[in-house]
């Protein structure tokens, strides 16, 4: 739904969702409007002139730059990174682009123009606020970096589409209808894991969505740690070759094991829970895999200010084949990470549930409310 009151922005530290109307229809309408805004933005906006992957040490000509090392000899990935340069690049490639990975100059100019317009505090934003339409707040609140030429974050399969199984595709479509005020929300369990302030999810946390798209990497001998601004989630990845935890033990963020392949950090993530399956914040049609999900992440410094991040997802129950997202990260050590106290300020959940429960036909059976 993308509008809980827990998301604190770097430049706008207010609990936006708290403004939301208690009226369910207004609430769902607002959410729908906000979602439409985000979707439109996705199709027509932002990112960087070239994929960071294609331009090592961008702008520095023939660079003599090499991957820095920690004092104990590991490649040094440390720093604060954001994925803001890919805000607005759709996760899944719109079909009209086929297998084309980059926009034409003309398409790029349009996307860039639209991104600059969206960043303005303009009359459209004022109208949106004045209407019964608080939602996520005005468009110019969203964080964005340079405009990207990329047509999708998914780079494999070649058509840039997420290879969901038919059942998962239906589930994604059903949830999308629910988001647009067509019913189906009756308890907290019907909201996604980000709305519930549990997690933005793996690997969705790396996908730039609106705000707080920052990640700080720390290293110590034998470990790489990643501190995600959203939900103050932390992953501490052991590099010592130890086995995964017992398969009976399942976690929201799975279980990570890392190793170095040359200068690339390769992390295998397993032990996901059935509770993440289809319940995560949407990244395009992807809403989280489950018990069978396995991720292979690759992190590689490709310049003084750029980190390549690619993640391949497998899950025989959710996808018809493995698929890969490429999410270039830009180093920004001046970015200040704030505490993302989501659950502590989740007034939106209270307001939304009160709106639902106030109805005569309310039920506490998950997914059964006829809220229309």
């Amino acid at each position: 739904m993308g509008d809980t009151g827990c998301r604190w922005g770097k430049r706008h530290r207010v609990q936006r969702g708290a403004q939301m109307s208690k009226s369910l229809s207004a609430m769902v309408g607002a959410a729908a409007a906000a979602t439409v805004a985000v979707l439109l933005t996705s199709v027509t906006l932002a990112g960087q002139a070239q994929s960071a992957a294609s331009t090592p040490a961008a702008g520095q000509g023939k660079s003599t730059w090499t991957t820095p090392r920690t004092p104990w000899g590991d490649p040094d990935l440390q720093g604060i990174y954001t994925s803001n340069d890919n805000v607005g690049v759709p996760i899944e490639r719109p079909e009209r682009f086929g297998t084309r990975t980059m926009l034409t100059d003309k398409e790029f100019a349009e996307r860039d123009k639209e991104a600059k317009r969206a960043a303005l505090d303009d009359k459209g934003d004022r109208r949106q606020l004045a209407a019964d339409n608080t939602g996520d707040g005005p468009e110019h609140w969203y964080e964005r970096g340079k405009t990207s030429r990329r047509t999708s974050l998914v780079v494999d399969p070649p058509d840039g589409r997420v290879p969901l199984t038919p059942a998962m595709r239906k589930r994604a479509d059903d949830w999308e209808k629910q988001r647009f005020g067509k019913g189906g929300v009756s308890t907290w369990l019907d909201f996604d894991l980000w709305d519930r302030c549990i997690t933005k999810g793996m690997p969705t946390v790396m996908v730039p969505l609106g705000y707080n798209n920052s990640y700080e990497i720390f290293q110590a001998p034998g470990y790489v740690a990643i501190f995600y601004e959203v939900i103050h989630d932390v992953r501490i990845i052991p590099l010592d070759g130890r086995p995964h935890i017992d398969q009976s033990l399942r976690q929201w963020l799975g279980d990570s094991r890392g190793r170095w392949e040359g200068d690339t950090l390769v992390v295998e993530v397993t032990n996901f829970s059935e509770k993440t399956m289809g319940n995560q914040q949407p990244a395009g049609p992807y809403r989280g895999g489950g018990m069978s999900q396995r991720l292979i992440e690759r992190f590689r410094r490709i310049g003084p200010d750029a980190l390549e991040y690619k993640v391949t997802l497998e899950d025989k129950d959710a996808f018809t084949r493995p698929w890969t997202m490429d999410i270039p990260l830009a180093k920004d050590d001046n970015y200040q990470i704030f505490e993302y106290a989501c659950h502590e300020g989740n007034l939106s959940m209270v307001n939304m549930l009160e709106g639902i429960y106030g109805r005569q036909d309310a039920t506490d059976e998950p997914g059964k409310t006829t809220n229309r």
Partner: protein
Amino acid sequence: MRLSHRLATCVAAIGVFLAPTTPAVGQAPPSVPRTHDGKPNLNGIWQAITTAEWDLQAHAAQAGRPDLGAIGAVPPGLGVVEGNTIPYQPASLMKRKENFEKRMTDDPVIKCYMPGVPRATYMPFPFQIVQTQTAILVSYQFASAARVIQMRALKPAPVDSWMGQSSGRWEGDTLVVDVTGLNGRTWFDRSGNFASDSLHVVERYTLVTPDAMTYEATIEDPKVFTRPWKISLPLYRLLDKNAQLLEFKCVEFVEELMYRPLLKRPAK
């Protein structure tokens, strides 16, 4: 002569006895591990073994929620407060008593809210330190709380927060962390000890053996206390094979408690 010789022997003996637990101020024993930049190496998973989470002050065992029987009861403890007195101002002492009466419902951690500093340190949950020269990440198991200790002076926090803003420095071999910008919405323990948004905590982490450190926190809050006071307790390294911080994302466990009443109907 003879007397002074005996005295000197005595002093030396005391020194030897105390060395493992109370090193000279700011200096760890040579046996402690060090990082590449020569600082005591605090990397690892740590946990307090104390009942400070139930009550910072000395307390006998007592009953908890009756329906939980022995597993809900409060374990006894000698207390971690220096001198065992928390110097409340009179009005604050009343508030503390009121908190105690309502402890089964009003303790903020019941709702899986972040526990703040110093409470996160001595809850019965581990935390992991990832130490670098410029910043130290502290990742707590409870509620996935986390904070980054910046190893430099900081401007006042732009906004108050649950875990505060942490600025660290080394004083000899002791990591000293100045914690400000706390929002005053946390409690120190399950018995209702509390502070306000004027809380200022100075923590001191000193490695005394490779697997143990002393933790001290000086607590200052002019709105609540008449003077600064101090807690002190050891922290122990988890030595379990392949120890790792597992998730304790407790939001999931409190939704029924927090959201069910909005339904205004009893659970089926």
